[in-house]
């Protein structure tokens, strides 16, 4: 029985519920959360290997045959992201252990992190479009709570905007589902795909697909990113790193899934629009990244640039480009969490938020400074780090498809990423030190461990790209040939 597929979602939910009863015992909560996450990572890695031998696996909840019941479908793309998301959550929690403070830990912090991960993993694995909505809501409800934990003035102010924006985008999601159901009468994604390829993608369906595009663009920050910089700089560092690493990626995943599996018949409309949006996102994100002096804003705009870059891969829709998008998604989850953790730590140790108010950090914290340098190189796409292979493949795909404008924008944006981070590096790490050795805040061991693990992961993705190649190729292959997915679900 394939019950194992549900574990990456059901296990965190169950643990999150159990942790509510263990509120006073913070040590126990930490141990249980770490063990649960290790189990989740283990099962998802096992699933990844299983898929390579046996093909896509699925689980029909309650034994209801598709297309009637809800189901989870595990293909390489989904499971790769589940694995990376669980690993990133674990490492962010290691950072949180020594930084978040007892007050927040006591407010059901670990329960809500587990619920967040459950929503994220559920969104990756589900094969039913309404179930996708439900998983989105689980993830968002957890994020609404996490963003205000601590209850500082800025958090309350920014969270209100974040929540309202997300409620409205969820409303658009419901409207899009209603339109789709009216036309096709089914909610199973594979079945929707079959019905559309039988009857042709009518103009009405294309319009519906654009409503979906609005929803996912709001969730992932594709051009509609105006809510993102404010809300990602409000919460405590560990939570901001989780958000920066995971939340926008879910939107990107769903967009790639929906526009390769369901609405792939009219690429000259839908994929052109995605391409235009991605290009604009790259431009606006680059301008934002160099316009601000608050380092949390700069980091948040870097998230937006990455969203644009990955969706260039979807817009051109070739095997190489999609492989590149998958590689870059894996890389970006890790690198963005590390970047958020590093930026948050800089603010913690200096007490300043503007980059021109700090300098000379590398004298006080050499290892910390060099890790910032490494993540900067990785985000700019320097080999042998993890960003390189994704950038090369997306670039190759764009050349193959002849979209030179997107190619140019994608690579010019890399220069802006490099410039914006180099500015932080030069201003804050070099120069006269502002922290005397007496009142230097010691770097806690948990911080260094979590930075080190994420850096190591970046090297693994970069140097071991060869090892991951079959999994990524399988993921891209399934995306390009929807029939594989459909056969696995409906047979």
């Amino acid at each position, binding site marked *: 029985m394939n019950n194992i597929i549900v574990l990456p979602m059901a296990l965190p939910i169950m643990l999150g519920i159990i942790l509510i009863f263990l509120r006073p015992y913070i040590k126990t909560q930490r141990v249980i959360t770490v063990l649960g996450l290790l189990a989740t990572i283990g099962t998802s890695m096992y699933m990844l290997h299983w898929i390579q031998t046996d093909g896509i696996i699925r689980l029909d909840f309650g034994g209801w045959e598709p297309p009637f019941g809800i189901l989870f479908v595990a293909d390489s793309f989904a499971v790769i992201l589940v694995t990376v998301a669980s690993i990133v959550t674990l490492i962010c929690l290691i950072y949180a252990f020594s930084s978040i403070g007892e007050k927040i830990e006591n407010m059901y912090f670990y329960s809500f992190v587990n619920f967040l991960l459950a929503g994220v993993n559920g969104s990756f694995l589900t094969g039913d479009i309404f179930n996708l909505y439900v998983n989105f809501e689980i993830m968002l409800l957890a994020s609404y709570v996490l963003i205000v934990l601590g209850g500082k003035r800025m958090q*309350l102010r920014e969270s209100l905007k974040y929540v309202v924006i997300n409620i409205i985008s969820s409303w658009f999601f419901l*409207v899009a589902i209603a339109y789709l*159901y009216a036309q096709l009468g089914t909610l199973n994604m594979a079945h929707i795909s079959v019905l559309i390829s039988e009857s042709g993608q009518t103009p009405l369906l294309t319009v519906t697909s654009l409503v979906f595009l609005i929803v996912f663009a709001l969730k992932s920050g594709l051009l509609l990113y105006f809510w993102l910089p404010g809300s990602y700089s409000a919460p405590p560092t560990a939570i901001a790193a989780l958000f920066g690493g995971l939340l926008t990626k879910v939107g990107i995943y769903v967009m790639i899934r929906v526009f390769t599996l369901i609405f792939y018949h009219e690429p000259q409309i839908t994929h052109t629009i995605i391409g235009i949006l991605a290009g604009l996102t790259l431009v606006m994100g680059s301008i934002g990244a160099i316009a601000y002096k608050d380092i949390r804003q700069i980091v948040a705009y870097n998230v937006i640039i990455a969203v644009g870059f990955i969706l260039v891969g979807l817009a051109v829709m070739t095997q190489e480009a999609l492989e590149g998008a998958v590689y870059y998604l894996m890389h970006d989850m890790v690198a963005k969490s590390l970047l958020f953790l590093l930026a948050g730590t800089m603010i913690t140790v200096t007490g300043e938020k503007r980059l021109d108010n700090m300098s000379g950090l590398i004298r006080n914290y050499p290892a910390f400074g060099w890790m910032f340098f490494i993540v900067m190189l990785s985000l700019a796409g320097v080999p042998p780090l993890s960003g390189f292979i994704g950038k090369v493949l997306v670039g190759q795909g764009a050349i193959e498809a002849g979209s030179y404008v997107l190619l140019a924008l994608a690579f010019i944006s890399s220069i802006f990423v490099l410039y914006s981070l180099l500015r932080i590096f030069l201003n804050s790490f070099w120069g006269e030190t502002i922290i005397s050795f007496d009142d230097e805040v010691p770097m806690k061991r948990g911080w260094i461990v979590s930075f080190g693990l994420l850096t190591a992961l970046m090297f693994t993705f970069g140097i071991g790209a060869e090892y991951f190649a079959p999994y990524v190729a399988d993921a891209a292959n399934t995306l390009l040939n929807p029939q594989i997915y459909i056969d696995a679900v409906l047979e």
Partner: protein
Amino acid sequence: METLMIILTGVLVTIATYLVLSKSVIRVILGTAVYSHAAHLLIITMGGLKTGNVPILGDEDISTFVDPLPQALILTSIVISFAVTALVLVLAYRAYQTLGTDNMEELRGSKYE
């Protein structure tokens, strides 16, 4: 009947949009609640308004029954929107206590804080 329902949905969306665009936080929250009702009405209309029996086992003639799926969707979505609205109300109340205002204009915030 369908046309009437769609017009009603449109009216609800208009009202909700008006409320969401106002400055008071509580009106914005009411607007989101009206939005969710509009979406539910839209789903039930899109599922097709038929006259028939309830889709529940019984000894009546089960040859004509309404599509149960939109109803299940709406039930799920009502539960979710209920949870979200409740959470936002608590959040808005806490924000009002801490920040001392419910005016969205004043919640804009300064750049460096």
